[in-house]
């Protein structure tokens, strides 16, 4: 009996760091946010119960809908761009090329650089006055493009930057997926007369479906959490064209002290993400072969 008791004590002790972390940094904030959803709170006065008013406001808040549309627009550019470029790079880097270890490391580098630093770097690159990109364009006779100040271009510009930043991670995922496919499967296909395109279309792509699902889900999660890039580069402008849901939530919370409404936005976003991932799982998830 005694040993059983000391066993359970030891168990609790060993799991306590995680349990404390879970309670303090996850369960409590989630619980408190849920409480805030039904309250109005400005950080100064006591929270005031408002029932479902935060939700009804959310439904009619055109700024929220604009932020959601912006975020979806970002995702529509970001996810396909991310997949195409990462997959192409992974295919090249899977080949026995000279210096591939160097390139693998180089493409991964932006992932480990701080988001704020990358954003400032790209702000300079996009600059109309001193930006490298516009300078290169000017060399071929193209007028300076107002990357971050034109409402039609700002979000794609941010999407390109975000893709560059996260690319390395997805290249690694795809690379792992490609390298897991046995070489003999390609050799068998080659002996049947498959061209490089056939190999890609009928072998690599279908066998990468599980990786593709992972990349799509992770890009979706990351994309919906778009914050640091518009926050640093554009502040949500021009004309609200880069205002993302998370940035809007942040502004509601810390610029306008609408903590209850910000919490409501957070829950709404979580719900939207769940629905998206569920749909992706239904259509993209498949058996794992290796």
């Amino acid at each position, binding site marked *: 009996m005694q040993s059983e008791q000391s066993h359970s004590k030891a168990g609790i002790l060993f799991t306590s760091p995680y349990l404390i972390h879970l309670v303090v940094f996850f369960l409590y904030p989630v619980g408190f946010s849920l409480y805030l959803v039904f309250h109005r709170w400005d950080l100064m006065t006591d929270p005031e119960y408002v029932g479902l008013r935060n939700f009804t406001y959310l439904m009619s808040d055109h700024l929220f809908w604009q932020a959601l549309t912006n975020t979806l627009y970002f995702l529509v550019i970001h996810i396909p761009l991310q997949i195409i470029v990462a997959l192409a790079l992974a295919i090249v880097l899977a080949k026995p090329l000279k210096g591939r270890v160097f390139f693998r490391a180089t493409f991964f580098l932006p992932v480990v650089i701080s988001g704020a630093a990358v954003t400032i770097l790209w702000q300079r690159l996009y600059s109309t006055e001193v930006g490298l990109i516009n300078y290169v364009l000017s060399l071929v006779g193209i007028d300076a493009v107002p990357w971050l100040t034109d409402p039609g271009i700002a979000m794609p510009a941010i999407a390109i930057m975000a893709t560059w930043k996260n690319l390395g991670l997805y290249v690694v995922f795809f690379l792992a997926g490609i390298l897991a496919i*046995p070489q*003999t*499967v390609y*050799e*068998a*296909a*080659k*002996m*049947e*007369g*498959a061209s490089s395109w*056939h190999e890609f279309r*009928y*072998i690599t792509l*279908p*066998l990468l*479906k599980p990786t593709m699902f992972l990349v799509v889900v992770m890009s979706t999660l990351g994309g919906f959490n778009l914050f640091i890039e518009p926050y640093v580069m554009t502040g949500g402008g021009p004309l609200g064209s880069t205002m993302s849901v998370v940035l809007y939530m942040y502004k509601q919370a810390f610029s306008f002290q609408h903590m209850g409404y910000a919490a409501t936005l957070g829950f709404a976003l979580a719900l939207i993400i769940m629905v998206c991932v569920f749909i992706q799982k239904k259509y993209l998830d498949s*058996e794992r*072969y*290796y």
Partner: protein
Amino acid sequence: MQGLELKNLEKHYSGNDQPTIRRFSAKFEPGEFVVLVGPSGCGKSTLLRMIAGLVPVSNGAINLDGKDITNVESNLRNISMVFQNYALFPHMNVYENLAFGMRIRKEATQTIEKTVTEAAKILHLQDLLDKKPGALSGGQRQRVALGRAFVRKPKVILFDEPLSNLDARLRIEMRQEILKFHEQCGAISIYVTHDQHEAMTMADRMIILNQGVACQTGTPEEVYNNPVDQFVAGFVGSIPMNFIHGRGILNEGRSFFQVGSYKIDLSHIGKDYQLDWSKNSGGLTLGVRPEDIYLDEHYSHAVAPSPKMAAQVKMVEYLGDSTIVHLEGDIGSFKSRFNKDLRVRKSQKLDFVFDLKKLHLFTEEGNKLPC
């Protein structure tokens, strides 16, 4: 010439001092089942891949039915290959796996259906056509791999250790299936294995490969009974040949093999060795197969029994159909295969004889002396 001819094939990999394949030449007749056998890393899979066109040839030529195919793309060589891990397309069902090549080559749907149905019938895959490889057993996957080779109606089928992933019992079953399949195809089959037992039981002809060089080519009987050197002698045989190291001596004009206190008159082995052993170091190796060792009381079974020798039993392996006895005596350690009815105990002392007509003699370099 009809058939496949390999002329002085060589493969050099950059970074390797020694070529992986050295001046390999061989001819394969239509309908022949040839087994390439050798230890791991001897270059047999590389050679197969060179024939398949998956590995470029450094030197030499490959001719198929008189046509040089050395630099022809692998899919245009009319050669199929069955891989060790089957290399089936895991996301396609059996039908799609069999039809893959024909679909790539844009053959008519009716032709594809007819060919796949025929292959499925021959290989008993009819009920599995809509199953994916993951749902099949090892033997079934192997049959799908055979089917994929069959539907191409190739002139040459290459087998790269196709049974090594199967358990012992299934391996024996599949050997028969592969041989039956080979007869139905009528193609040249080149079969790579490191399992000499598989090689002996399946081959019309076997080629023993060591360090990229073909050591010996011949029927299993030829290779077993007349190995050209010590490597082949030691490699072929499910229980390897025993090698007893001793010296050659000349005594009153006659040659003897001496080990410990025993002297074996070499004139009994078959050839009169009037050699002056003192010219070299005199080191010799006597090769004797485990089944050519007899207990003293059974010596009458030996055509030409050697002098009686003594040894002690170190271990007994009862195999059911025979008994393997590990012995140690003045001549060193060796194994013998005895009748299943023999009852011996560990540490028991035995007298035994060799059958002198079945001994093999090798120089210190491993070359065989004529017997």
